[in-house]
């Protein structure tokens, strides 16, 4: 049986007055993950599972963002390097690497993909109004959570043709 991880929400309110706050009752809408030197917010509705890092088998000839293929629930799963996807410098050897299995692409053609990240941090609320500087692509924009700026990801865009 796989190691499925529990991602508890932080206790305390942590609100910052701009519509984005750390959740106090596990009712957040985004999962915060560390990827390289950045923190990313993934829409919870797109997160299927958070696992200890899956064994990945490299695919010769792939671009650097693709770490390779893994097995998940009996199916082949492409695993992408989240730090590379968002252009983050790599971090030192992560202490608790995870694979986050997410749905990507439009609703009528969604597919599962694994995102390799350094760690899963917590669940937080990110209101749409708090997101700034979005480019309409995979990085929807940035939002402040407490004292930290996180990159809010648009997973649907990852499944679009480039």
């Amino acid at each position: 049986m796989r190691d499925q991880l529990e991602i508890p929400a932080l206790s305390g309110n942590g609100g910052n007055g701009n519509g984005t706050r750390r959740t106090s009752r596990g009712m957040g809408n985004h999962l915060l993950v560390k990827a390289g030197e950045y923190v990313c917010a993934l829409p919870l509705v797109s997160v299927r599972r958070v696992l200890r890092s899956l064994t990945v088998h490299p695919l010769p000839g792939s671009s650097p963002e693709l770490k390779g293929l893994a097995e998940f629930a009996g199916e082949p799963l492409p695993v992408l390097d989240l730090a590379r996807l968002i252009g983050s410098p790599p971090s030192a050897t992560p202490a608790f690497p995870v694979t986050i299995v997410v749905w990507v692409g439009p609703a009528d053609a969604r597919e599962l993909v694994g995102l390799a990240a350094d760690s899963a941090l917590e669940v937080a609320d990110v209101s749409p109004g708090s997101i700034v500087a979005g480019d309409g692509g995979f990085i929807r924009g940035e939002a402040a959570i407490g004292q930290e700026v996180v990159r809010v990801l648009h997973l649907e865009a990852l499944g679009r043709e480039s």
Partner: protein
Amino acid sequence: MIGPLAAGAGRKGFLLLRRGGGLWGIASSAVDSLSRRGGAYRIGVGENAILADEIIGVVDDLLVRPSAGVLGRFWCEPAAGLAIHGELPLVVLDPRHPPGVLRPADDDSNEGDRSA
């Protein structure tokens, strides 16, 4: 079996092999010959050939999934699909268009086979 193989069209299953650190599968019906070349293997596939570092074996069946979508954005090689053998993911080859890592270098492709 090393050397010419029995008529491929009626053969079932998939030949599994390793090349370049990856695990690959090809329909047995597409395989015409298998020969050893030094430390590697040369698999005749119609007018093409592919190379393998290791022959894993033959499996009766694979559940082949489409490989388009996100994978195609980051791995621009043709393939028949993806599958799982045991707990190992693999790429099922399109015999007409093998990925570059499996193709012999030009100077190898016209050499005669040296069956072991």
